[in-house]
């Protein structure tokens, strides 16, 4: 399990390559038949408005703890071999990755379901807050929509 908070841009596919070959393949060779991944990327629009940039605030310390709790709960429910969560904070521009959630499992049902569950739990519980820069000024995003 690995949880990382980055205050500068990260490259999700390159990080996946490194984590899988360096950790998952070393610790579980021949066992990880299925990996499911979600990557959230900053859009240049939201609720009908053009978005120029975004500030992502978080609660250092609690963020990591809550993400680890979310992974722990997923492990009780599905058979998982490893998990990787990376989340950006700070000043973002459109097209920059915001979040990566990856899980490795023997079987695809566990991988798919756990990945989506972790992502939804992150959206509703991990202490991050987005402030969008619009032409008219800045606004806090008020609420995440349900993803199911």
């Amino acid at each position, binding site marked *: 399990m690995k949880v990382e908070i980055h205050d500068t841009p990260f490259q999700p596919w390159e990080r996946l390559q490194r984590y899988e070959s360096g950790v998952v393949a070393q610790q579980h060779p021949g066992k990880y038949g299925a990996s499911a991944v979600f990557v959230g990327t900053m859009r240049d629009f939201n609720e009908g408005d053009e978005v120029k940039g975004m500030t992502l605030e978080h*609660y250092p310390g609690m963020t990591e703890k809550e993400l680890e709790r979310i992974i722990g709960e997923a492990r009780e429910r599905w058979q998982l071999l490893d998990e990787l969560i990376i989340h950006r904070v700070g000043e973002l521009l459109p097209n920059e990755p915001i979040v990566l959630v990856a899980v490795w499992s023997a079987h695809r049902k566990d991988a798919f379901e756990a990945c989506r569950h972790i992502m939804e739990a992150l959206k509703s519980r991990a202490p991050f807050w987005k402030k969008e820069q619009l032409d008219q000024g800045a606004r*806090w995003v008020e609420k995440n929509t349900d993803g199911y």
Partner: protein
Amino acid sequence: MIGSRHAWRKLHAPFSEDKLMTVKVKFFASLKEQMGCDGATVEIGEVATAADVWLAASGGKALPNNVLVAVNMEYCDPNQQVNSGDEVAFFPPVTGG
């Protein structure tokens, strides 16, 4: 909103005046902007809930329904008792991911 700890205690602490404890308060995001600060150390009567801490720290305003509460970096009910040295955080609905 948070003035000197002493002045605040005199005005709002609803519990025992002789036994006090110290808790660390944190605000985030829009709540931080509304409160005008990202937190403070406050003294409060020894038997107090997270909601009591909010009441004290906010200058007597009721805890808004949608404000989330965490004690020592774990979500909790506003009615949960807090202990001396606890970190009590208040923040709006989270919007990460």
